[in-house]
């Protein structure tokens, strides 16, 4: 009997290891022969730990499982039975392209990876010129999934056209935004797809070396990625002769050190070089002067991990998903105070309301939804009245929001939006790299000014508005530049929360 149990951090955080141990022990007691395969997570975090048993080629789910459920699960009469996992509403409604294998295969089984479509993209790319590869990425319409949404093909073109003795592919795996975990899930659940994507990027632009800058807060992802690189190297996927093509590409996993700002690409490069993670002024663009001053592709994990499926199925197939200038799929991460949280990959264009109320099922506490913060700590707090917004880069921008890395954090009506605005400023103050004044000083003054508002000081609100304008226009990077977005969206949409102090003062 084949059992599948996730090894994803979220599943482990909810007790998957204990469940696996209990199932193994119970099988031994019953004299059952079982084969436990640890996989990534399907993304239905509210069902984790989700145990799957293969019956006649179909995987039947049981969840959320506890160690006490072991006997019933093995006998097949558990009340946690969910039926065939692929038939669950959450699974059926998705367009899983980037995440097709996550939760399905053993993340470190290269043969299983290949059996599920892996390496087909790289094989195809090996038969193409660098320019042809870049053109294919352009046709796919892929844009940077880290948040900025810059067209990936254009970035690759710049590096492709640059003339240098050494070029680099750097994967930004410093996924520090609250409410986002897609990078972590794919690195833990399907690491070879990221490796394959980086190799294709290397072939495209003529880079022979790559780095994954992976945050230290993700020890499980670091362990799996490190092992996957070793396996890929041993199997000839990486090295001086990629899959016998005579072309070279190799890569390393580098661990971050707990600085949020290192998710900004230029400070990431400084950190990778062993310096303080301070933001660099642009230009020069990293595409021309990046790691060690060489032309460098810096892409987010999801961007790079999506490249293999684009080459496997063809750019047009990918581009046929989505809306407007947002082509392909978006990996939504539904989090915070929500009944059903997790990862949901779908074509761009789904509305925020459908995600929060339908997929998410509203709040976990059962209270009314007050706000959703979309796009991480630097994204806007949107009230329910804005939930008709379709999730696309330009579409959300038009509603005063930011799609970012597509993390959605839901709050119920007990949330105090003044507190959340204050936290945004406090976070910016703690994490500012210190290079530019609007961010370094502005964030500290922002906390003080919001405290004045809380005390009922009527003069403080215009000051906060003015400060946010200065930070937005004058900061060097998105940390100082976008912190005003959560702050001012809270002020604009939840004015009542900023008036309590005033009433008290009067």
């Amino acid at each position, binding site marked *: 009997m084949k059992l599948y149990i996730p090894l994803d*951090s*979220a599943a*482990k*955080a*909810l007790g998957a290891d204990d469940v696996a141990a209990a199932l193994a022990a119970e099988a031994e007691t019953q004299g059952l022969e079982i084969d436990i395969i640890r996989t990534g997570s399907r993304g239905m*975090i*509210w069902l*984790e730990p989700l145990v799957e048993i293969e019956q006649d080629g179909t995987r039947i789910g049981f969840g959320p499982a506890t160690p006490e459920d072991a006997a019933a699960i093995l006998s097949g009469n558990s009340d946690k039975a969910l039926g065939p996992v692929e038939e669950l509403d959450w699974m059926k409604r998705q367009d899983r392209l980037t995440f097709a294998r996550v939760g399905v295969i053993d993340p470190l089984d290269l043969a299983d990876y290949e059996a599920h479509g892996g390496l087909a993209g790289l094989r195809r790319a090996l038969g193409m010129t660098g320019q042809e590869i870049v053109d294919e990425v352009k046709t796919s319409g892929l844009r940077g999934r880290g948040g900025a949404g810059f067209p990936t093909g254009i970035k690759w073109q710049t590096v492709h056209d640059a003339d240098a003795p050494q070029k680099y592919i750097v994967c930004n795996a410093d*996924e520090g*935004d*609250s*409410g*986002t*975990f897609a*990078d*972590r*899930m794919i690195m833990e659940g399907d690491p070879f797809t990221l490796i394959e994507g980086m190799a294709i990027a290397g072939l495209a632009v003529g880079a022979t*070396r790559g780095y994954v800058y992976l945050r*230290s*807060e*993700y*020890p*499980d992802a670091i362990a799996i990625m490190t092992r996957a690189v070793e396996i890929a190297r041993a199997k000839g996927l990486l090295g001086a002769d990629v899959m016998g093509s005579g072309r070279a590409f190799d890569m*390393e996993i*580098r*661990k*971050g*050190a*707990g*600085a949020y700002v290192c998710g900004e690409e230029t400070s990431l490069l400084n*950190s*990778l*070089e*062993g*310096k*303080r*993670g301070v933001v660099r002024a642009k230009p020069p663009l990293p595409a021309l002067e990046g*790691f*060690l001053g060489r032309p460098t592709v810096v892409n987010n994990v999801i961007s790079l991990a999506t490249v293999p499926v684009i080459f496997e199925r063809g750019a047009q197939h990918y581009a046929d998903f989505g809306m407007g200038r947002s082509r392909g799929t978006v990996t939504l*991460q*539904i*989090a*915070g*105070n*929500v009944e059903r*949280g*997790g*990862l949901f990959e779908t074509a761009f264009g789904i509305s925020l309301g459908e995600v929060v109320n339908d997929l998410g099922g509203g709040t*976990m506490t059962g209270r009314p939804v007050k706000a959703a*913060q979309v796009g991480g*700590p630097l994204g806007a707090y949107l009230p329910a009245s804005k939930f008709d917004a379709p999730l696309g880069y330009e579409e959300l921008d038009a509603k005063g929001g930011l799609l970012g890395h597509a*993390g959605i*954090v*839901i709050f*119920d009506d007990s*949330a105090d939006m003044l507190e959340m605005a204050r*936290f945004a400023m406090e*976070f910016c103050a703690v*994490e500012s*790299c210190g290079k530019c004044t609007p961010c370094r000083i502005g964030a500290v003054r922002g906390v003080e000014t919001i405290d004045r508002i809380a005390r009922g000081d009527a003069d403080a609100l215009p000051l906060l508005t003015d400060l946010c304008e200065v930070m937005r226009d004058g900061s060097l990077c998105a940390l100082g530049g976008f912190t005003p977005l959560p702050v001012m969206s809270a002020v604009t949409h939840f004015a009542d929360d900023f008036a309590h102090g005033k009433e008290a003062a009067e």
Partner: protein
Amino acid sequence: MTNSPPPAEIADEIAAIIDAHKALEGPLLPILHGLQDAFDHIPQAAGPLICDALNISRAELHGVISFYHDFRDAPAGRHILKICRAEACQAVGGKALAEDTLAKLGLDWHGTTPGGAVTIEPVYCLGLCACAPAAMIDDRVIGRMDSARMQSLLEKVGA
């Protein structure tokens, strides 16, 4: 703080860690992580050796070590408990959980319990936002943390 040379075996271990990473492109963070893995902090004695090996100044080295939250210049408690302070955890009571825990232990962030059992660190996101509030004890992640689970965890690590 003295600058007397470290005992020979410690100096050898430091030198070995530096040597193991020196040839990397951008070797400083891997060296610092290596040292912290071995000694639980960056030993003062490593400074001159790193500066010498990488041809950087003491000021540059200090600048890097002090920039990153991860690096410590003194050993932490026997266990490190990280509690997430970010928005998704706040949405489900993470703030109250963190405040209660600190109050119970009589500590502020970065503080260590008197017996040296556990150091409490804030962390901004563990990527467990769909099963918040989240915490991490050493390298082990915990989701849907509540005060009862926190209490039993603290007892288990001897805090």
